[in-house]
């Protein structure tokens, strides 16, 4: 059996629906059609009345999920693309994220965001929005990079009593395959050493994990072993695991597909330098997408976002310092 990242997301939702009667799904075209990416294929049939097509209304989708959560339900909602969540952002950051702090009533919703770039998707179907949501207090922001994590972290997300922004990467949907779904899982909030090394640490997440591993393999031909840390969760951020890796390697490169200003890479560097300044043998570096909208044409897109090759050259530069 071969299971894709997308299958994992569907299976996790199927299991959540089967295990917990409080779970229901709401979003555009997720019912009989099974969703724009087929992440909910057959679920409407298997769980009648619990997989509901919404109108084209992101604000209402999120708002309804929050109301349902207040009443004890555990909704999973799908934004058709992460980019459209800007239209539901107000409900996410001001209503879902503040509910527990203000009223003491938790808000267990999962907002699925099909995220990140794919060739030819352009400025409005490619965004990585984790930094916007992680900036706001009250949200948990997850960025699974593997089939196993897509499955177990989505299941975990449904169990969390707080609003979870679940950033799935569209580029991994069908590209990434595993043999089977995991029975056990690393806890949410813990980072993972995706590739051990000793000469430098690359901290990354989501689809960039694979670019970074490829880059590390490339740099290994020069005799350098790069450790790749997959954050898994960008809020909370597992500073301890990062620091432990930097303690081993002395060098840090952060790689993210999002826009460069602020965001995960800046946050990681701020934490490492505040808490682990003495561990660093060289200036910590970062590599992000360029500071423009995500371009439509694949030739431009390939340069806009970091790739194995641009990561490898950033890593080489870091190692030469």
């Amino acid at each position, binding site marked *: 059996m071969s299971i894709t990242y997308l299958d994992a997301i569907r299976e996790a939702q199927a299991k959540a629906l089967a295990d917990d009667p409080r779970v229901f799904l709401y979003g555009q075209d997720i019912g009989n059609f099974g969703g724009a990416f087929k992440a909910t294929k057959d679920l409407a049939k298997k769980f009648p009345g619990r997989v509901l097509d919404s109108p084209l209304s992101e604000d209402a989708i999120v708002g309804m999920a929050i109301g349902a959560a207040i009443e004890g339900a555990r909704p999973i909602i799908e934004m058709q693309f992460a980019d459209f969540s800007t239209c539901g952002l107000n409900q996410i950051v001001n209503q879902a994220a503040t509910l527990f702090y203000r*009223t003491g009533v938790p808000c267990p919703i999962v907002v699925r965001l099909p995220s990140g770039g794919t060739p030819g998707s352009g400025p409005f179907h490619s965004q990585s929005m984790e930094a916007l949501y992680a900036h706001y207090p009250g949200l948990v922001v997850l960025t699974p990079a593997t089939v196993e994590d897509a499955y177990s972290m989505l299941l975990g997300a449904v169990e969390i009593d707080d609003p979870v922004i679940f950033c799935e990467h569209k580029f991994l949907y069908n590209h990434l395959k595993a043999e089977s779904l995991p029975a056990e899982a690393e806890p949410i*909030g813990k980072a993972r050493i995706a590739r051990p090394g000793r000469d430098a640490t690359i901290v990354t997440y989501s689809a960039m994990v694979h670019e970074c591993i490829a880059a590390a393999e490339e740099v290994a031909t020069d005799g350098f072993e790069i450790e790749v840390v997959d954050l898994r969760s960008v809020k909370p951020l597992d500073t301890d695991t990062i620091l432990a890796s930097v303690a081993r390697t002395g060098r840090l490169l952060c790689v993210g597909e999002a826009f460069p200003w602020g965001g995960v890479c800046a946050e990681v560097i701020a934490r490492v330098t505040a808490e682990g300044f003495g561990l660093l043998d060289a200036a910590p570096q970062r590599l992000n997408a360029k500071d423009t909208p995500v371009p439509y044409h694949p030739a431009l897109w390939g340069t806009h976002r970091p790739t194995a090759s641009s990561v490898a050259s950033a890593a080489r530069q870091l190692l030469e310092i």
Partner: protein
Amino acid sequence: MSEVVKARPKAARDEGQEFVKAYRIMLSARVLEEKLAALYRGGKIKGGVFLGRGQEALSVSVGIHLRKGDIFAPLIRDQAGRMAFGDTILDTLRTYLGSALGSMRGRDGNIHRGRPREGYYAMISHLGAMIPLVAGGLLARRLRGESGVVGATCIGDGGTSTGAFHEGLNAAAVEKLPLVVVIANNQYAYSTPNDRQFACADLLDKAIGYGVAGHKMDGTDLGACLKAVGEAISAARSGAGPQMIVADLLRLVGHGEHDDAKYVDAALRKKTVGRDCLAVAAAAIVENSWATAEELAAWRDEVETEVDDTANRVMREPEPDPNEEDWCAISTPELEDHFA
């Protein structure tokens, strides 16, 4: 006082029972809000004060027709509706005066209060945003097999211009949820008059575009409000889908207590919309012999005493202590993010 009571015939009393009950809640809200205004002028309130004077008849009609188990998401000017739904003088004062013992624990304040577990949702400021929340609450209730539940939420003329209003009401209509959206058209959104807010002849014209039932009434007339809101809530409860209520009235205070509302057209104050619903209701009570003017005065005295006593008590209560705060925004402490 008891002598005066004896003077009224029993039949009229029964007939007017709901009306009088509503009136007394309106009166409580009014008196409490007058106190809030005084405390605000005296510098005792933390933050702003936003009152519902002139809107009590509509607001109370919503709260009074809801039952335990229903959902209510009041908005800015719903002190009366809140009290009818179970909110107290004590918690209101605690929230405004910044007592640590209030339901919001100093984390939020004034009109931003509620007890979501009791179906009493706590508004956020972003107007329109409560509509999909109530719809979602109702959807969850339906999914777990409950019926006969109603969810009501209030909004102003200005709030109808928000995308959230549109999306929330439309989604509720598609699901045919028992949602009652109560629009208090008080002619202004802060300083903005209706003619800069919408171009339809009447806000009720919006109902058909959502495929929901519409109800219109004079918001200064308690009897009319009780009747129309009661009908709308019954219709929702019996499965007729979302109901839209539009009441015309005027806010008889500033947008907040900082605002002198000079922008209000003086002519409006002389029209029906400009009547004080509390005075109109009082007159109706006396006219119908449901109570005497003296009784009304006594009720006011009673509430004033309760409000004053409660305010004095609350002012001695402790403030929230920042050192006792856990400063954690989520309910899962293991997932708290730590900053150096």
